[in-house]
């Protein structure tokens, strides 16, 4: 069955081609929707079959690789030439990722049929979504870095296209420099920030090739195992790769794009900016666990960045009023947890959290989509309230998701987050400080998630009854919600420490790294149990506080806001990171290009015939004069200057 693995990738591609090529002619939304979701569904079924089959074989046979064709090879044919194949590697980690991507992806596709109904860009939307799934599967199933990078860039591109999907809509970026911007710009921002990350990935990849002479996981990782811990080049490689991961997974300091990315349609936020694409960075770090294990410095950096992101994003989430913004910062924060897990070498725990997070965050986003749908595109939770009467199913599922996110005991988020915190405390690379940051962030998480629930579904109805009649979403929308809710509730059971199998399932992938880290199984089941109790208490306390404040005494929140005005402003403005980037990077570059270089060099030319104002140069005579008195001579001067430089260089070498 594994030989059919390429089909997994092929189905979404076919779906994309169908929708993309014929879509604009086909007016039948049902057909488009069925093709779009069906192709992903087929992939999911295939992935499940492969998964089941893998369960049946012994551990060593589970990892296989299928080559489709040789993709790149240098045509010089020298010994050091470089080649890469389109080849897919099926192993425990990649099949798990494939299941998440296709499974959650399928549900979101189905949901989108209802959500996007009547949109003129219906076919475009499904084409992009399928393309995204295709790219994402390439990313997770690739057996070499180059193909992974292709997927990496591909998902970025789809994300960019989908964020700007409603390009004509205004979109509030929030904060003090508020005001509206076009969603197209949000897409552009996402893309450019991602390019910074890609720079890291690309440099890491180049260094990997130079160091190991190959880009295939197999040869790279097996060569890496014989290197010693702390080799400088590995530190560089992993740091570069981590820059790539921070870009894609929205970690500090490159997190700025993700909240803006919420300008896209809600299913996109659910699929790309919560469940799948943003976790690519986590996946990449997990995939390269052996490299990271050999670079303790990088591990520390990863852990610290992860913890900080988890904390800062959670605090920002406390004060936001846009339903999707809250969820966006929550996503950033949860991704921080995953990186924290990676940093303390709890790779399985990180992947486990990735999986549960995919369930409940997709659920929350889709739920928020149903709310927004019902409220006619209103996203401000201050203008909602009391919606549980109108949206019973959405409400129940949303609460389930929020409980899971908050880490309510025995729900999926609880187990995964607890395991991360436990490892942060006890693991080789962990420290009580990391645990403290994580635990505080967990408290905030519980608080903001129930602030969100309470303000949206409970309390007074703060919207305008005369114009709005909220109603439950159609079946294509709420069925996925229910399924995801079930998964959010029970999804954690596969990963209960010491009981379930997930950890051992992934072991073969992470073993080389663990051997390098000389990680021992930690004894002390009692202590772990204690930590579980502590985590549960924190979650419950956060939930209770949020209910208390927003249900019974909403004025308290405002009092606090005015008492800690500065802090509130800081959080409301998201620590002024955007403003900082604008001041430090964006404006100087644009200005510098404009005034310094361009006008400095080409000043005589700008106002010439070039911008279409031909008045300046009317006759050849004047052209001649211009050339003789100015521009061409200065060009020649530049050439002479260059020649002098060249000659001096050679003489003084």
């Amino acid at each position, binding site marked *: 069955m594994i030989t059919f693995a390429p089909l997994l990738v092929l189905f979404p591609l076919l779906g994309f081609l169908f929708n993309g090529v014929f879509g604009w002619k086909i007016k039948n939304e049902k057909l488009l929707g069925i093709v779009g979701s069906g192709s992903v569904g087929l992939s999911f079924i295939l992935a499940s079959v492969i998964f089941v089959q893998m369960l049946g074989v012994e551990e060593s046979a589970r990892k296989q690789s299928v080559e489709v064709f040789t993709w790149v090879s240098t045509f010089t044919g020298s010994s050091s030439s470089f080649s890469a194949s389109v080849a897919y590697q099926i192993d425990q980690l990649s099949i798990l990722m494939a299941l998440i991507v296709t499974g959650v992806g399928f549900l979101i596709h189905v949901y989108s049929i209802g959500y996007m109904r009547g949109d003129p860009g219906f076919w475009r939307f499904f084409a992009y979504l399928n393309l995204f799934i295709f790219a994402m599967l390439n990313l997770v199933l690739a057996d070499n870095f180059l193909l992974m990078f292709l997927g990496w860039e591909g998902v970025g*591109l789809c994300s960019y296209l989908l964020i700007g999907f409603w390009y004509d809509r205004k979109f509030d970026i929030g904060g003090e420099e508020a005001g509206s911007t076009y969603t197209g710009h949000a897409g*552009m921002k996402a893309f450019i920030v991602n390019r910074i990350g890609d720079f890291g990935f690309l440099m890491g990849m180049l260094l990997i090739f130079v160091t190991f002479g190959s880009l295939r996981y197999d040869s790279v990782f097996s060569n890496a195992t014989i290197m010693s811990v702390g080799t400088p080049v590995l530190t560089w490689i992993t740091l570069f790769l981590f820059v790539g991961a921070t870009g894609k997974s929205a970690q500090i300091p490159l997190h700025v794009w993700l909240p803006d990315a919420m300008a896209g349609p809600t299913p996109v936020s659910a699929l790309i900016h919560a469940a799948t694409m943003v976790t690519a960075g986590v996946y990449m770090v997990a995939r390269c666990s052996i490299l990271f294990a050999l670079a303790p410095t990088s591990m520390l950096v990863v852990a610290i960045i992860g913890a900080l992101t988890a904390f800062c994003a959670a605090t920002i989430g406390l004060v936001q009023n846009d339903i999707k913004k809250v969820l966006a910062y929550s996503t950033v924060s949860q991704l921080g947890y995953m990186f924290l897990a990676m940093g303390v070498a709890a790779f399985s725990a990180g992947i486990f959290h990735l999986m549960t997070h995919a369930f409940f965050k997709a659920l929350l986003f889709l739920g928020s989509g149903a709310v927004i749908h019902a409220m006619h595109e209103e996203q401000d939770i201050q203008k909602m309230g009391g919606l549980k009467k109108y949206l019973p199913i959405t409400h129940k599922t949303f609460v389930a998701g929020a409980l899971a996110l908050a880490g309510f005991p025995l729900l999926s988020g609880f187990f995964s987050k607890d395991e991360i915190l436990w490892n942060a405390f006890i693991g080789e690379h962990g420290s009580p400080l990391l645990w403290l940051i994580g635990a505080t962030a967990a408290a905030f998480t519980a608080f903001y998630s129930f602030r969100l629930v309470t303000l949206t579904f409970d309390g007074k109805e703060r919207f305008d009854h005369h114009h709005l009649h909220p109603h439950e979403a159609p079946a294509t929308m709420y069925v996925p919600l229910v399924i995801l809710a079930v998964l959010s509730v029970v999804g954690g059971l596969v990963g209960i420490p010491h009981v379930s199998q997930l950890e051992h399932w992934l072991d073969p992938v992470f073993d080389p790294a663990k051997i390098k880290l000389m990680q021992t199984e930690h004894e002390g089941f009692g202590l772990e149990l204690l930590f579980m109790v502590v985590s549960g208490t924190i979650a419950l306390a956060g939930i209770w506080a949020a209910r208390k404040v927003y249900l019974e005494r909403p004025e308290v929140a405002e009092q606090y806001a005015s008492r800690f005005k500065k802090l509130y402003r800081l959080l409301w403005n998201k620590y002024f990171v955007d403003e900082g980037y604008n001041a430090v990077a964006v404006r100087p*570059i644009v200005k510098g*290009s404009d005034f310094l270089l361009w006008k400095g060099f080409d000043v005589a030319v700008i106002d010439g015939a*070039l911008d279409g104002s031909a008045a300046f*140069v009317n006759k050849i005579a004047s052209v001649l004069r211009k050339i003789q008195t100015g521009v061409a001579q200065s060009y*020649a001067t530049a*050439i002479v200057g260059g020649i002098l430089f060249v000659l001096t260089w050679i003489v003084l070498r």
Partner: protein
Amino acid sequence: MGFQISDIANNAPLFTLVATGLVVILLESAKSGKPNVSFIVSLAGFILSGLLAVGGLKTEDVSFGGMLMNGSYSNFFAIVFCLTGSLTILISKSYLERFGQFRSEFYILVLFAAMGMVLMASANDLIIIFLGIELMSVSLYVLAGFFRTQDRSNESALKYFLLGAFATGFLLYGIALVYGSAGSTNFSVIHNQAPALMKNQPLPDSVVQAGLPDSVVQAGLPDSVVQAGLPDSVVQAGDSGLPAGQAGLAGTIFLLGLGLVIVGLAFKVAAAPFHMWAPDVYDGAPTPATGFMATAAKAAAFGAFVSIAFKMIGSTSGTISNLLAVIAAASMILGNVIAISQSNIKRMLAYSSIAHAGYMLSGIAAANVEGQAGVMYYVAAYACMTLGAFAIVSILERDDAANLSIDGYAGLSAKHPVIAAALALFMFSLAGIPPLAGFFGKYYVFLAAVKADMTWLAIVGVLTSLISAYYYLRVVVVMYFKEGEAAVEGRIGMSTVVAIAVCAYLVVQLGVYP
């Protein structure tokens, strides 16, 4: 020595181009005013020549007594030139018709320019390089000024001519210095001389004994030159004139000559700081001619560049490599940063082409096999995407430079979804987004740079390509995310559409299966 029949067979692509050019001239003089015929004949000539080049990929040979090198390298470039040439011709038809300048001369000039390019890429002798450059440049000067009634076009041609002649002077001077120090203009001979010349440079004595004229004679090639008396003074100066204290001079002179040759070529590829002509010239010239200049001419200059860097000096000289690396870095930074503030799309593409010259130069600076392969790949990829972009610009251009501003592309996606998609494809490829051709080009050259221990250069390259994403994407954003009227009057020429389709196909094909 001299001429053999096999020389013709070896250089079939070259001679096909000449023959086609002559036929078009004759046709034009016989049946004046039938540019359609010239169009078809030229196109056929290019295609035939390209096919012959494909056929010649396998055989490695020298011809004309070592003047030319024929083989995979030269034929690869010949294919690129024939491709860009024929695409230029396709693009030009409707463009020239719209401006009422549909005349045969355009095709004659393109054909001869392509011939010069083929010469440059297959040259094994500095004289051929020089002649190839001249043939190409003279044609391009006229092509730039093809719209005689437009001031912009005239200005463009005149500037190109003046500065081009200026730069050619330095090139020629450099060739003279190289000849003076190495005693030959032939690459193979110089290649043998170069290590001795460079090694002896720091030592104070006995360059001369290391024997310039001797080994020249042994190499057997230009002994008749020596006797012919032309370079008497040079040879004798080398032989007896220089006292021991000045002996190291030969190596320096050789390097200075190389430096000047590099300057001349850097001008042709529009690398900083020899780039200043490019935006003005590109902007003023008729768009198909601009596309031809920006792609084929640049490719040809790189063909010569790679020959000189690899065939002539080998990878022995760190000085030259570092020099090239500095030029490359300067081009990447200047080109990309200035491109950000451009509002005119042709100027933007001009600065972008400067930046791309920088990327390709970093492959040459790396001076290893990967670099050579990378540059070759890059040249082909770059030609396809840039020519495609210019083809689309040519569709949208109106009289008197109207509709060249990037803002004028607003709403293009709504009016002409296919064209907008194609332009977006080219922009993405130029920005270096996988799996398109542009990405692999960059990847190869950066890889080469890293391998040559020039990691800093690769970092500069990656960072600047990051910047470049901004201005390429701005075009996409404007096309897709802004309301506006991007009108295309009348019918879009069928041939242009074919050209765009070919470019788009190649951009994807080269990326997916390089």
